[in-house]
Structure formats: structure tokens, C-alpha cells
């Protein structure tokens, strides 16, 4: 039978090793623990936010093995060996803010800021996906497969539709992503 996790005394916990922002962590996690709670409560990384806790708002967006995901819907125990990047880890030690972080500041792309870490992590994923040739719902189906997809405002809006902003800062969020798009300044991709 597959690997039964958890010592006998505690069938509902397992040791799990994750790399978070480049640093390895081994934790005994309750099987119910989702990545978002592990980041915020066990590792004090409070950048990723709990909005809806049901994968609907995108405030908890982080990158797992380079792909943007809703950390509220990922059970931490399943991520053994995975590489997690949160908003805190987008720029390396000693580096300034990530170009998207700088663009959000320059464009004033938020009001309350609660959705911002998720928006930024999601935008990092958007730029990487477009570069890798991933189409979106608004991409012309006849566009050639496998080539980078140019991102106009409609593309950015569609691709960021999984990130809600209750303040309604969308126009400036799109401005900020547009500023970084195509500049080659998305070092995590």
C-alpha cells in the first residue's frame, strides 16, 4: 500500500518538508492544514491573505513550483518536496522590490491593499504563463500554439479574473501589470 503518513500515535499528522522562499522547513502538519494557514500561522508569513477561504477571491495566491495557485485549497501535507514562493520572497535577499511590486506602488494600484499580495503573485504567474504560450479565454483561437501570447488590457483583465478587489482598483492594477509586461523584468519566471 502507498506511503501511510503519520506516526502511529497521531494518524492525522505527518512530517512535511517544504521550501518556502528558498528556505527548507520541516513541520509536523495536521492533515487538515492548508498551505495558507501554514504560511500565516506556522511560518509568520502573513503576506498571503485569507479572503474567502474557498478559492474564489485569489487573496491567498502564491506560487508553488512556479505556478500560481490558491493556497487556501491546497493541503500542506500534499506539498512535501514542493517549492513555495510568497509575496515576501518575490525579490531575493538584498534586492529591491520585484518590478511588479514597484509598478503597483508607482501606479497606486490599490486602496486597502488586502488583495494586493495575491494580485502581485497572480500577475507574476500571468506573465510567466503568457511567455510560455498559454492562451486565455480571450486569446484568438487561431493564434499560433506554443508562442508567447502578447498581453493587451483585455488579456490582463481576463487572466487576473481570479483575483477580486473589493475597492475596485482594477484599472490601475491593469496599468501596473501592463507596465511590467514585455519589459523582461519578471525575474521569477
Amino acid at each position, binding site marked *: *500500500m*502507498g506511503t501511510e503518513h*503519520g506516526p502511529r500515535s497521531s494518524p492525522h499528522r505527518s512530517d512535511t518538508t517544504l521550501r518556502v522562499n528558498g528556505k527548507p522547513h520541516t513541520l509536523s502538519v495536521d492533515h487538515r492544514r492548508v498551505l495558507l494557514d501554514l504560511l500565516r500561522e506556522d511560518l509568520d508569513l502573513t503576506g498571503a491573505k485569507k479572503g474567502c477561504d474557498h478559492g474564489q477571491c485569489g487573496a491567498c495566491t502564491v506560487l508553488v513550483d512556479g505556478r500560481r495557485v490558491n493556497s487556501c485549497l491546497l493541503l500542506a501535507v500534499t506539498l512535501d518536496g514542493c517549492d513555495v514562493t510568497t509575496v515576501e520572497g518575490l525579490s531575493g535577499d538584498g534586492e529591491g522590490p520585484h518590478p511588479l511590486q514597484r509598478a503597483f506602488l508607482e501606479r497606486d494600484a490599490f486602496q486597502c491593499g488586502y488583495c494586493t499580495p495575491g494580485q502581485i503573485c497572480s500577475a507574476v504567474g500571468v506573465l510567466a504563463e503568457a511567455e510560455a504560450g498559454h492562451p*486565455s479565454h480571450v486569446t484568438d483561437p487561431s493564434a499560433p500554439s506554443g508562442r508567447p501570447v502578447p498581453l493587451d488590457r483585455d488579456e490582463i483583465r481576463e487572466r487576473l479574473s481570479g483575483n477580486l478587489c473589493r475597492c475596485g482598483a482594477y484599472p490601475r492594477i491593469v496599468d501596473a501589470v501592463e507596465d511590467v509586461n514585455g519589459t523582461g523584468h519578471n525575474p521569477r519566471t
Partner: protein
Amino acid sequence: MESFAYVRADSLAEAAEAFAAHPGARYLGGGTNLVDLMKLGVERPTALVDVTRLPLDRVTELPDGSLRIGALVRNSDLAAHPRVRDGWPALSQAVLAGASGQLRNAATTGGNLLQRTRCPYFQDVSKPCNKRRPGSGCGAREGVHRDHAVLGASEQCIAAHPSDMAVALAALDAEVELYGTAGVRRVAAADFHRLPGAHPERDTVIEPGELVTAVLLPAASAGAPSAYRKARDRASYAFALASVAAVLEVADGVVAHVGIAFGALAHRPWRARLAEEALLGAAPTRAAFERAADLELAAARPLRDNAYKVPLARNLAVDVLSRLVPDQEDS
């Protein structure tokens, strides 16, 4: 959420064995629906058998020209796959019409097929629901049912299947491969989901312990013009109010092959066989498409608040089919 054991399966046999060893177990793929339902208390597995490390994450072109999509291929990778985009565009379009970028990065092909209805009564454990708790009644029939089924519903259940992907698979004559203790079998995608009848608790024909291992796209429809169109309340990131997937081939001025499936109208993707029969051999005109859609939708039995779905689905079907007619054949 209640506590559960966790088993990471390294092979199909191990997965099936672990499932059998834990009554009340569930297989775990991307988890985007299952983990949510666990948070809501709708699903309360005693154990999760994690199948995400199984080698089912590849898209393979088979010698006969068909395409094998591993059950663990993520929705985003499926939609972006050049062979899928070029050969079966309705599938790529359907996947991209669903969920968000984050969810598509996590959700798997197998899990997309097995996702549960978003009926609010099913998702709320304080409400009656024959699908969640057989015999408890249906809150939706006299309640909030704007999003619910107009075709093939039963007294017990009027839930609609939420998948976009499955609608395209049904229209494209795809097959679903299942692995179980009795061996491997294949089911037509159009027959994989059930109508609710007296047993709405069963969404599909899958047997307990069986695992979706792959979806197969037939060589026959490779390269045929196909498309998916979805109507929803928002421009993005919302479930369908109605949708249509269609594949259409025209030869010598008449319809040589057609596959049509409706989404969000029934407990399963609704393969429009009556409409297809009416169109086969006919000239591909707008009038013919209208008659065919009307013929199919004559069976609709809308409720108080979802009658809008019938003309919406009809117009979507006519639009999608009309666009699939090659320019020189347009009449």
C-alpha cells in the same frame, strides 16, 4: 473539517488498495473542489488517497492519431497543449472558459470530470438535498433554481453539472478510461455522467474505488472545426448559465459529421442527439440549425426561474454551429 488519514499512492495498485483499506476514503487530485467541500462539511472523508504523484500527467499522441490525456494533466496544461488547441479546439476553449488561472493550474482532468454540482442546497449542510443526503428532499425545486436543470431532471434533483470541459468531451466523442480492481474499462464521455432519476447521489457511472486514469480524444474528430461558447453572468470566472460545444464537418454542401452538447442544462453534459440526427445530411443553414436546436430543446421542462435557459441555449447553439460552417459553404 474532520480529521482524516493521508496516504500517498505510488502506483495505481497501491491507490486502489489504500482506498479499499479505508472505508469512507476519497481519492485526492488537485483538490480544488474536494477540499472546498470538506471545508463546507459536505465531504467528510476518513482518508485521502493522494494520487497526484502517479505518472498520469502526460498528453500522448497514439499511433492511430488519437490523443491520450492523463487524468492528472492540469487544466491549464490541457488548454495550452498545441495538439489539443490545433486538433480539438472546443476542448481548449471550454477549459479556458472555466474557473480562474489559479484554479486551472491546480485542477486535474480527472477531477474536472468528477467535480460536484454548485447547487447552493447541495453545498449548504443545513439545507435539504437529495444528492447530499438521500431522502432529505430538494430545496431547489421550489427555492433558488435560476442556475438549475431544464432537461432530464427528476422529482428528487434538478442540479446542473458545472463542468465546461466535460461538455466539450461529450460533443467530441471522447472516452473516459477507468481503472478499478476489476481491470480497465472505457466509457463514452457523453455517458460518463448520469441523469439524477431516483439516485441523484450518484453523479457518474464510476464504481466505488474506480479511478479516472485518462481521457481519450478520437482520431476521427482530430482537426475538425469545433468550438465552445458559454453564457454567464460575468465576462469571466463564473459558472455557465448555458453553454454549447459543437463539432461540424461539411462535405459537398451538406453536414457530414456533427456533435453537439449543451452545458448547464442538465445533470450531465447534454448530448443533442436529436439535433444531430436532424442535421446529418442537411444543408448547414441557419434555418436548419434553428430547427435542430428547437427539436432538441422541445424536451425542456423549465421551472419558475430558469425558463430563460431554453432560448439562451438555442441561440448559443445556432451561433456556434453557424460559425463552424466553412466560408465557401455558408448560405
